[in-house]
């Protein structure tokens, strides 16, 4: 595809369940980011992958959150034992290099009930 693709677009889950969010970056992009955006608010950095370097996990809010990037391409963000405060739009972005702009997916709207 031409852009960053995220799936699912919407996810409703029960409190305590685990969820997986997927991101397909633009082919060839070396950097991949995950952010979280609460309703109408700013972007909260979660995790950053750059090439083969160790990911920057400094933004993950708790050990219930984890992410992988397989083969330098697809990434999965996993939230274990979801809580209501995890409800937000989860955005993925990718960029070719660190000095180029990041392109964002449409996001996954997660609702924990």
């Amino acid at each position: 595809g031409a852009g960053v693709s995220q799936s699912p677009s919407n996810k409703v889950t029960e409190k305590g369940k685990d969820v997986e969010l997927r991101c397909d970056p633009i082919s060839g992009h070396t950097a991949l980011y995950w952010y979280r955006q609460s309703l109408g608010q700013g972007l909260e950095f979660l995790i950053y992958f750059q090439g083969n370097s160790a990911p920057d996990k400094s933004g993950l809010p708790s050990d219930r959150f984890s992410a992988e990037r397989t083969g330098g391409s697809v990434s999965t963000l996993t939230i274990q034992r979801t809580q209501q405060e995890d409800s937000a739009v989860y955005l993925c972005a990718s960029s070719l290099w660190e000095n180029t702009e990041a392109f964002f997916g449409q996001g996954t709207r997660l609702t924990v009930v």
Partner: protein
Amino acid sequence: AQSVAQPEDQVNVAEGNPLTVKCTYSVSGNPYLFWYVQYPNRGLQFLLKYITGDNLVKGSYGFEAEFNKSQTSFHLKKPSALVSDSALYFCAVRDPGRGNTPLVFGKGTRLSVIA
């Protein structure tokens, strides 16, 4: 650590008037700076960036921004606002001098252009 501040939560401007959305940053070295726009129920779209070179950069939809190193600012400007410019605007910064660092965003400024 790198950071970016958008001091105004909301900016209101009349259609046809010039607009400015403010952004200041904090990095240890020379920054990479970006502006993004988010329209309602849409994803974030890239507007413009400053990496090096001319301090005045021009971007999409008639927007421009001026990099001011002494004031550590990167304000977004447009000479004549349109109602369709109403959206949420985000400034972002990266500190390339610290190796692999993420793109850090400000809290956003909601721009409302009134007809």
